[in-house]
C-alpha cells in the first residue's frame, strides 16, 4: 500500500545514470544515496563546496571542517575536490550538474515549484534551492502526495511563493511518478504498489494524463 520514504528514495535513485553529477536535497532526497546502483558511477555534489561526498564519518573521523549543505558531518572520497561557494554555484548555475533531487511543499502542473516560504510563518530562507532549480539540467521532486492535513500538493497553480517557474521535470510521491513536459503538462507514468488511478485522482488537484 503506497510507497514509504525508502521506496520513494529507491525510485528516485533510478533517475541516476552512469557518470552523473548529482545534488541531493535535505530529507528523503538524502536517503537516495543509499540506493544508487552499484553498476553506475555517480558523484554527489554538496553546494557548500564539495564534489565527491562520502558517507557519514565514524565517530573518530568527525572533522568540523567537513560538512554537507545540511551542516551534517560527512567524509571525503579519493575523487573529492573542494572549492568556494562561488565555484560551487558556478557548477550549478552553469548547467554542469546533471540532476537535482529535492523536496517540495507544492508543485503545479506547469512545473512551478514552491518549497521555501509560507507567508505569515517564520521564513528560514531559500538557501541554494532557487539556484539549483534554475541551473541544474534535470529537477526531480520527491514528496508526500498530500500535506499532513490531507490537502493536495500537486496543483493547477502553486498558492505559495515560488522557488522556480516551470522548473520541475519529475515528481515522485508515495502514490506514484509524474513526468512534467517542457512547457507544462503532467503525466502519471507509474503507480505505487496497490495504488489505483482513482486513488491518485482523489488526492490530486492538478490535471494529469494517465500513462501507466
Amino acid at each position: 500500500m503506497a510507497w514509504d520514504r525508502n521506496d520513494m528514495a529507491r525510485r528516485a535513485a533510478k533517475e541516476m545514470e552512469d557518470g552523473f553529477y548529482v545534488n541531493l536535497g535535505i530529507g528523503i532526497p538524502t536517503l537516495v544515496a543509499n540506493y544508487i546502483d552499484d553498476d553506475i558511477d555517480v558523484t554527489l555534489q554538496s553546494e557548500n563546496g564539495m564534489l565527491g561526498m562520502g558517507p557519514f564519518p565514524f565517530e573518530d573521523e568527525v572533522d568540523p571542517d567537513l560538512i554537507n549543505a545540511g551542516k551534517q558531518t560527512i567524509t571525503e572520497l579519493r575523487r573529492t575536490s573542494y572549492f568556494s561557494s562561488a565555484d560551487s554555484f558556478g557548477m550549478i548555475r552553469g548547467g554542469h550538474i546533471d540532476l537535482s533531487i529535492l523536496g517540495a511543499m507544492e508543485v503545479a502542473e506547469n512545473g512551478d515549484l514552491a518549497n521555501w516560504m509560507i507567508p505569515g510563518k517564520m521564513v528560514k530562507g531559500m538557501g541554494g534551492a532557487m539556484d539549483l532549480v534554475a541551473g541544474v539540467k534535470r529537477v526531480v521532486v520527491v514528496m508526500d502526495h498530500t500535506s499532513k492535513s490531507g490537502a493536495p500538493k500537486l496543483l493547477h497553480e502553486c498558492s505559495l511563493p515560488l522557488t522556480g517557474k516551470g522548473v520541475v521535470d519529475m515528481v515522485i510521491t508515495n502514490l506514484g511518478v509524474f513526468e512534467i513536459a517542457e512547457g507544462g503538462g503532467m503525466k502519471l507514468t507509474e503507480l505505487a504498489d496497490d495504488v489505483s488511478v482513482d486513488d491518485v485522482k482523489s488526492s490530486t488537484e492538478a490535471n494529469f494524463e494517465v500513462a501507466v
Partner: protein
Amino acid sequence: MKKIFNDAKSALEGVVFDGMTVMSGGFGLCGIPENLIAALRDTGVKDLTVISNNAGVDDFGLGLLLQTRQIKKMISSYVGENKEFERQYLSGELELEFNPQGTLAERCRAGGAGIPGFFTKTGVGTLIAEGKEHKEFDGETYIMETGLVADLSIVKAWKGDEQGNLIFRKTARNFNPMMASAGKVTIAEVEEIVPLGSLDPDNIHTPGIFVQRIIKGEHEKRIEQRTVRERENA
C-alpha cells in the same frame, strides 16, 4: 607594511565604525571567523549591516552580535538555526534581505572583482525578481543582481603567511575567498601563521593582495549536526 597583528582586538583597531557593512565568511558554523566576531562584539560597534550566508546559532558565531543587538540588517540565504534571530525579526527590530545562496556568493565575487552588476536566471518568476531589471539572452530571461562590497570583511582560513596569502581547508572554504576579495579592509584569522615560502605558490587560494591584516586565532570549531555511523563488528 606589517600585516600580522597580535590578536583580534588589535586587528580591529581603526577600522570599525557604527553603521558599517561587514562581510563574515563561513557556512553554518563551518569556517566562520569566530575570534573576530567575538572581538567585533567587544568593540561595541552598532547598526551593522552583516552579509553572511547564515546567522550563527544563539550563543556562537554571529548569534553573539544578535544577542547584543549590534546588527541592524542581515543579508543571508538561510537563517534557520537561530531563535534570537527569529524573535528580533518577527518583532521588527532586525531587517532581513534573503538572497539565493549562489546569487549571494556571486554578488560577493562580483563586488571584489569590480563588477557592479550581472545577470542570472536564479529567481526568475519568483519574489526575488520583483523590481529587478529583466533581460533576454538567447531567448531565456535573466534578472540583474548587483555586486556587493563591504567596509570590512572578516574571514577564516587554515594557514596564512605574513603577506596575507591564505589556504583554506575542506568545506571551511565556502564564502571566505569571495568575501576576502570584497572587503575595503579584510582581516583574516588563521589556525597557523607559517613562515614565508612554506605555502606552495601554486596552491594559494586567496592571494595576499586581498588581505590587509592577519591574526592567529584559537578555534573552537563547533559542530552543528554531528552525524556519525556505527562500525560493524568484525
